[in-house]
């Protein structure tokens, strides 16, 4: 039996433990081009989450036996910093969970990238979680897709993601760490928003078909909001760059 949560997850006035409504996202800040050394980079702050993503490539892949003759290899590394979690320090070595999330994030990003344009090459995505507070895989996908766009890699669409959860029978959007740990279920969803293509869909807990339908619709609405923020972040950086180019000419 799970321990009871330290604070009530749903308050009597119908709010969540951090004061949000059921269909409310945490405040999200996105910034593109935060790292100088990477080809492309982005940072996301979603509530207490702080995640940095860096992209390198396309570049030649070594060792060559890993290269594919018809498309690029996308390599993803999701890593949590030792100080990123509450409580005991996390070992910096990759855990089972981190290896799995790297794969899941890679598969969520792959359909959006024109990998077939870069045969025998590799595109590397490095995701560093500096502070974790639930929903990091979704936040990582949001940051990584911005970093890919910042690296100038051709994309079919940006990828946006959000986790929906089930807390005391209520379907809630963008769950935090407490709701993830003490809630009854969570469902991360990633989409290419303009196409409506789902690239990541996971769920744990028990969900009825109606709940899944409602949760997906809720996730879609959240993803559209995040997508608007992503576009705004890219415009913020590149409109400045274009003005400089035009003044130079």
């Amino acid at each position, binding site marked *: 039996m799970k321990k009871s949560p330290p604070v009530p997850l749903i308050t009597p006035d119908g709010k969540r433990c951090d004061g949000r409504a059921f269909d409310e996202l945490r405040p999200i800040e996105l910034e593109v081009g935060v790292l100088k050394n990477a*080809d*492309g980079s982005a940072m996301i702050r979603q509530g207490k989450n702080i995640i940095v993503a860096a992209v390198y490539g396309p570049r030649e892949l070594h060792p060559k036996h890993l290269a594919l003759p018809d498309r690029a290899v996308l390599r993803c590394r999701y890593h949590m910093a030792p100080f990123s979690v509450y409580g005991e320090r996390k070992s910096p070595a990759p855990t089972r969970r981190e290896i799995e999330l790297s794969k899941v994030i890679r598969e969520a990003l792959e359909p959006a990238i024109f990998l077939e344009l870069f045969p025998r090459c590799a595109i590397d995505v490095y995701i560093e979680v500096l502070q974790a507070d639930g929903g990091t895989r979704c936040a990582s996908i949001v940051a990584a897709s911005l970093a890919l766009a910042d690296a100038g890699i*051709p994309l079919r*669409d940006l990828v946006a993601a959000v986790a929906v959860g089930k807390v005391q029978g209520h379907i809630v959007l963008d769950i935090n760490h407490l709701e993830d740990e003490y809630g009854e279920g969570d469902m991360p969803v990633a989409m290419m928003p303009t196409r409506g293509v789902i690239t990541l869909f996971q769920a744990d807990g028990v969900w009825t078909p109606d709940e899944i339908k409602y949760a997906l619709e809720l996730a879609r609405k959240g993803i559209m909001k995040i997508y608007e923020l992503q576009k705004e972040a890219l415009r913020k950086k590149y409109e400045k760059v274009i003005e400089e180019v035009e003044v130079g000419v």
Partner: protein
Amino acid sequence: MKSEKKIALPGERIAVIEEFMPYSGSYPYAYEEDGNIYSSVVGIVRKDLSKRLIAVEPVPKCTRLPTYNDVVYGQVMSVIKDTVAVTKILGKEGGTRYEVTVTGLLHISQVSETVIRSIYDAVRIGDYIRAKVISRHGPPYLLTIKGRDLGVILAFCPFCHQPLRRHGTLLQCRNCRLSFKRKISAMYLV
């Protein structure tokens, strides 16, 4: 081409196929799907109203792999069967430097207009060369050093490792008083 002030973002619809054809340059930065034309990068939309072409010029400044007709600088790493020099491309002319080098292949037929017996008469392992990319896809990229400005731009004496100096059509080591045969670029450094 006429350009718009607005920037296009990845996945943004910039036209429909009845209006324009996506311009296919080295990479399809504007691509067609289901009758719509989308941008695949952050870029400036350029329209050619007479040819009805639409293109997206990418804005992010990042290292890009070489493309057809690019002039590149490289170092010869090894030679296969006296006919192919395996070169690591270090950078592109115009300032791009590759942190992770790209492989280029120089075949004996792409050294000069005349027949040469062995590729060792043109380049040797360790030489720095200025070459042009003649393949559209890669890596590995196919290179040529045919032309006045292309060829070896820096070579070292195999015995004393001093830079070789240009002496007529040969390269000479002043230390060892030896001459070496190369396909020398007109831009040879010393």
